[in-house]
């Protein structure tokens, strides 16, 4: 993997931002018109082709990824080398990450991250949650691309550029509820390859072990004070599991466009602030927030610590916080405390599984 000179990196990042941000704002203003109630079938087909290409096409290139929060922004460059049958090697610079920090994402046997018990696959989720239509064709990294615009009513939510030649998604923009560009990921260089095998992979590291929770057990979990809302904002629950090491309950959500993971742990949040997090009022309470890729929010309510991890804009984080128990301040309210007590009494009365 070739190394980039720091000055060149800064230059590329700056040029990328200068090029992308105005173009995104301009394109958004053009695309946020009236939307048909029915999805554009050709736009849906483009998304299906893009999803398949991510698993079937080998490539290498460089991406620029940026995210914007209320008070901060992050931009990194990522060298990507993807072998369809093996996985993706990413090497990252910038954004507070040590240079040449690398990760390998092995290709799984199944394409869908959703548990079959929990509902439809990602594309079905996306078309069920949003309106999909084609935008004006454009070019990304010197390649011709078809544009798919994803909206909720008259509000543009995301835009995806699909490579005409390979079907790979070349660029993705996500907007917050106010219409501001929140996350952008785009190739600035892309080469389609026929590489069959990646060598010199990073060493193996332990995976977080977990046990799947059957959906039929969810009502019982809720009665015992483990809130698992079936939906947060536009995202639906797609999986629940129990982490072995931390005993946390992990609830996953998706709308086909973004993911949210909520981790619930019994205990009291340490008073000392988390490094890199900022106390922020969000979703009706004060949380420890870190905006980035992904974004994080941590708060405590009635003896349970909640940690949200998501690749969605901060608006979605606020929706998640609002959907989960939160006291609205540092002190628990009377009814919150009573509700917690009722839940605890119920747990005592009902034998534990």
């Amino acid at each position, binding site marked *: 993997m070739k190394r980039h000179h720091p000055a060149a990196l800064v230059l590329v990042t700056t040029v990328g931002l200068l090029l992308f941000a105005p173009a995104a704002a301009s394109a958004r203003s053009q695309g946020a018109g009236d939307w048909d109630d029915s999805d554009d079938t050709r736009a849906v087909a483009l998304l299906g082709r893009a*999803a398949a290409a991510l698993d079937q096409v080998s490539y290498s290139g460089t*991406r620029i990824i940026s995210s914007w929060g209320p008070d901060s922004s992050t931009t990194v460059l990522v060298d990507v080398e993807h072998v369809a049958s093996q996985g993706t090697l990413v090497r990252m610079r910038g954004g507070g990450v040590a240079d040449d920090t690398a990760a390998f994402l092995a290709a799984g*046997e199944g394409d869908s*991250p959703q548990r079959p018990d929990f509902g439809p696959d990602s594309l079905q989720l996306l078309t069920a949650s949003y309106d999909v239509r084609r935008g004006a064709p454009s070019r990304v990294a010197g390649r011709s691309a078809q544009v798919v615009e994803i909206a909720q009513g008259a509000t543009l939510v995301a835009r995806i550029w699909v490579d005409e030649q390979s079907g790979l998604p070349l660029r993705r923009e996500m907007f917050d509820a106010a219409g501001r560009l929140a996350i952008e990921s785009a190739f600035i260089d892309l080469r389609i390859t026929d590489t069959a095998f990646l060598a010199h992979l990073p060493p193996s590291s332990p995976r977080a072990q977990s046990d799947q929770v059957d959906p039929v057990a969810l009502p019982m979990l809720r009665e015992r004070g483990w809130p698992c809302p079936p939906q947060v904002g536009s995202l639906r629950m797609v999986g629940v599991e129990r982490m072995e090491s931390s005993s946390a309950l992990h609830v996953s959500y998706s709308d086909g466009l973004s993911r949210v993971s909520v981790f619930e742990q019994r205990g009291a949040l340490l008073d000392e602030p988390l490094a*890199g997090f900022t106390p922020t009022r969000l979703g009706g309470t004060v949380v420890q927030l870190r905006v980035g890729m992904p974004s994080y929010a941590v708060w405590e309510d009635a003896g349970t610590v909640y940690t949200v991890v998501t690749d969605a804009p901060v608006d979605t984080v606020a929706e998640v916080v609002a959907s989960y128990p939160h006291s609205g301040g540092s002190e628990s309210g*009377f009814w919150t405390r009573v509700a917690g007590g009722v839940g605890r009494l119920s747990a005592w009365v009902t034998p534990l599984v």
Partner: protein
Amino acid sequence: MSHLGERLTALVDGHLDAAERDRALAHVRHCAECRADVQHQHWVRRRLQELPDAEPSAALLMSLQDVGAGAVPVQAAVADEQATRWRFPTRRHAAMAVAGAGTVAAGVLGLAYVVGAAPAAEPVRPPVGEFSAKFADVGDPPFSDAAVDAFPVLHSGSDRNPGFGRDSGFGRESLVSRR
């Protein structure tokens, strides 16, 4: 001959016919016990006849008149009693029920409030690194990208992000398998 028994009173009162009276008197002449009884009953009768006629007092007469004026037909009295029983116990029972329910509710609320107090739970520092790795491990919608997925893992191993690296247990370079 047996003693006079019940015929003794009839003899004293003069209620026996002639034949019965003769036979009774013949017995009394020979039976000292029955003769003593006959004498005793005559003595009681004379004493009662010697008592003066009793006149009721004015207060007693007025009390009796009040009772008569307040008297109501039996059916009306029964109906009135039933109606009284229906109204009075219902109000009382309702009040008792409300008070009881309120007490129980207050007790349950109080118990829930006490039990719902913030538990003396152990302090928790979320293992953000582990959570990030799990987030990346779950998989993604087809239109996010692997580079973004890799970020949590990279953050967890970055010395520049101590909030991620402290508890993660993941190294600077990580191998994460996607489902």
